[in-house]
């Protein structure tokens, strides 16, 4: 596999990324190929346009949000290491690794996964899901099946049921608490990176 070792050298900070994310070098290679494939102009980074070119995303009701999740606020580019970092949220939680008590938290940990989901709701990134933000997600996902008023009352109720401090918004702690029993590990993981 001479080619693989040579292409591995292309990847910047390969070793560091592997440590941070828990990906193996084979994973990284695959992702790097994908990254280059997405990066149509060989810019070395991805712009939102590159993501939008992905066919399925256009159909996805929350595709836009997921694209946004790749870009840290204020930036409109994402380089390879951030790309990998984001995708690492979807690794199945590596049990052995976490047990060893690694000093830093891997992105595939439960909290990180939840945080990622939370950020999909939290558009303005103020650490709270407001009613309006919830409503937008609902609107995107339920679409035409439900009327606006219904959406509103669903959002209203959803907030009510988890809102512990009565500030009419969902904080991350509240979010985490309400999803305590959900098997995030299964629901927020993809087998492809195994």
């Amino acid at each position, binding site marked *: 596999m001479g080619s693989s070792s040579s292409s591995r050298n292309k990847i910047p900070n390969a070793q560091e990324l592997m440590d941070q994310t828990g990906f193996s070098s084979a994973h990284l290679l695959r*992702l790097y190929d*994908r990254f280059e*494939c*997405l990066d149509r102009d060989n810019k070395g980074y991805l712009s939102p346009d590159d*993501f939008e070119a*992905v*066919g*399925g*995303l256009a159909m*996805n*009701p*929350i*595709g836009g949000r*997921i694209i946004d999740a790749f870009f840290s606020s204020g930036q409109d580019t994402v380089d390879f290491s951030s790309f990998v970092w984001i*995708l690492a949220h*979807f690794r*199945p939680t590596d049990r052995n690794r976490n047990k060893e008590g690694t000093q830093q938290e891997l992105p595939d940990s439960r909290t990180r996964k939840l945080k990622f*989901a939370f950020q*999909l*709701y939290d558009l303005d990134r103020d650490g709270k899901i407001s009613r309006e933000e*919830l409503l937008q*997600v*609902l609107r995107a*996902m*339920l679409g035409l*099946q*439900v*009327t*606006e*008023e*219904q*959406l*509103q*009352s*669903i959002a*209203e*109720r*959803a907030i*009510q*049921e*988890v809102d512990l401090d009565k500030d009419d918004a*969902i904080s991350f702690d509240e*979010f985490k608490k*309400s*999803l305590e*029993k*959900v098997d995030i*590990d*299964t*629901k*927020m*993981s*993809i*087998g*492809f*990176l*195994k």
Partner: protein
Amino acid sequence: MATCWGFTLFLCMLLMACGGLSLASEEAEPRNSQTDTGTGSSSNTTGEGGHGAGPITTLPIVTWKWHHISTQYLVALWILVAWLCKLIIESNHHVTNVIPESALLICFGFVLGGMIWGADKVQTFTLTPTVFFYFLLPQVILDAGYHMPNKLFFTNLGAILVYAVIGTCWNAASLGLSLWGCHMGGLMGDLDISLLQYLLFGSLMAAVDPVAVIAVFEQVHVNDVLFIIVFGESLLNDGVTVVLFNVFDAFVSLGGSQIDATEIVKGIVSFFVVAFGGSLVGIAFGLLISLLTRCTKNIQIIEPGFIFVMGYLSYLTAEMLSLSAILSTVFCGVLCQKYVRANMHEHSVQTVKYAMKVFANGSETIIFVFLGISAIDKVIWVWNTGFILLTVFFVFVYRFIGVFFLTWILNRYRLVPLEFIDQVIMSYGGLRGAVAYGLAVMLDENKIKEKNLMVCTTLIVVYFTVIWQGMTMKPLVTWLKVKRAEVNELTLLEKMTNKMFNHTLVAIEDISGQIGHNYLRSKWKYFEEKWISWILMKPSARKKQDEVFNVFHQLNLKDAMEYVAEGERRGSLEFIRKESVAIDFRKKFESEYSEDMPDMRANMSNGHRATSTTRERIPSVSVEMHKHTMKAMTEAEAVNAHHLLDQHLYKSRKQHRHRFSRSKFIINKDEKEVQEIFQRTMKNRMESAKMGSSPKTIVKHTKKEHQRKMPKGKSISQTKLCYSCDEVIFIGFSEGDSASGYDLPYPSFPMRDSRPGGGIENSAFVSDLYPTDSLQTPPWLAEGELDSSMVAPSLRAQASPPTSPIEMRHLGLLRISTRSTDTKQMNNDQLPLPPTPPPPPPPSSHM
């Protein structure tokens, strides 16, 4: 405790009676069997011959006709006895906490069998394969399929199939070969069993039994994935067992010398044919059921029956074609559940659910009791220590080996690997049960000399697994700290987030350029929603599918129930009105209602369907509506309305409830009656308004128009006219702060256009007019009532401003053109609320 003993005593007495009767029947039977040669009227003749033999000299007033009904009577009695056993067992919770119910039922079976043995000296009642496979098993399987958690099942289908197919083959082969090896090694003494017969025995012992597994696992509440794997395996491996059994049975008949490569290939082919054929039959029947329920609206009362009959037919059809009947029934249930639930009326859905449980649970009980009874029979007890112990040992050990090996392979591909303790529980949950026993009894004694030994061994394995493993399962689960199933409270956010996860995963798969499960699932879902649902679901059911919304709906229903319960506790629902939560609920209420808006709109084009859809769709929501309307009202309004309602509606309603009807439960489903009530209300209102001395005629007129035209709805022009009247009236009303009671037949359209804040007084009047009966009727009854839902819109109407300018214009135009002059009059009419309404109307004579 005393009651328990009482029951036991009663049971014993029943048993004695049973035994005595059966004794009688025993005596009679030899005669019968000699004299009858399959003539249809045999029981009749022998019955008469049994007692009043000689010529009749005088007219007997009472005769003893046991033989007429002996079979049916015994069947019914046995069912009763078995169920009473369960009753006794379940009334002792401290015992069932330790020993699973299935084990206790078997023990009861021992006792009962002992009594019969004591009375008859021969075991009269045993579990015969015919009874088991045709009368007891189908409903258990159908229930399992119908209530299968589909998503979980299909997510884990790969693993389930691996365990069910490969695991079962492994169990059969390893057991058969090992026993044969031990036989060769001389561990079992002198037995006349060939290798093929060992394999046959192995194949009948191989399958994990669905009945036993359900019974035990339901009590231990292990986590979902673990449960579905064991449960799914137990259901699907039947196909494999039956095929293996048939193949080896045929091989045994052929004899070792006849078997060559072709026969073996045939055997393998037959496996696929039987398994897939059975599944296909099931799928075909599932589709048929779904299609059938699309058009059973008019025979709602027997609607649930179709599920059972078709389910049973799918079982029998597969059996007839010598395909796997269990697979057929499972897939039939799995496939039809979604569409059936959407298509049928909510009441029918509930009926199916409960009736299914009654049948399944009932026959499960009977199966276990009879498994116990069957043991007390001297004929089958042939002891061979080596054979029996080795079988038990091998069954146990090979199950472990098989599970661990297969899991080791599977875990390489699984997203979330099965953990070690999960595997232990899976292996330990390999319970054998009645299926194995049924197959063992079916062995042909002429071909297999040691049949009784096999039956006996099977029974011992069954007892060992069900009683011993079943008993130790719970402590083991606790000890190993197996992840239990969590009792999840339904929350909207959770459901929402789940849905979001799904979308996210699909998106991430897109981004990373993989075609994974999520991608495929989303494609399938799209296809399913677009095509399959379109064919199998009736149009009105298709819309309400979204999970998040369903959860929302369920939560609201739950709330409503709680309100009613609370209301009953406090004596009335008055408190709801006093509390000031009005805003929330009002909002909620709106949304509930608006759900129905789009399709009502759609239906506007053909007049009379509008009512029918309304009726269909609203009932489920109506409970909330009651509540919401309540909430939204001020106290004063409530009192007012309460008063009115007392006067108008209670009595006629109640009297209707007492009617007997074979085909209808809910009186208010009847259009006539709704109209009747409506008319009555109108009349009363008019009268009361007359007291306020103002011309009511116009209102009445429009009212009548509704009644005349709505149900017929033959021509669009007619209905249009209707609408226009309505609209006019509504605008008029809203202007005059009144109205909403009139919109019964057309809840949606006109209402939208009344002004916010309008008709406060009236809303109280109207909304209470009907909904207050939730005070009187339990929610489940109220749920189905049409009239309540009819009223609901009025409230909504007040709160929502006209939505589209076009509508407004439209209405405005109409108003001007047709009836603008009436509005004033109507305003006047409406203002005085009836202070002393006339006496309650007599019950409707329509029905």
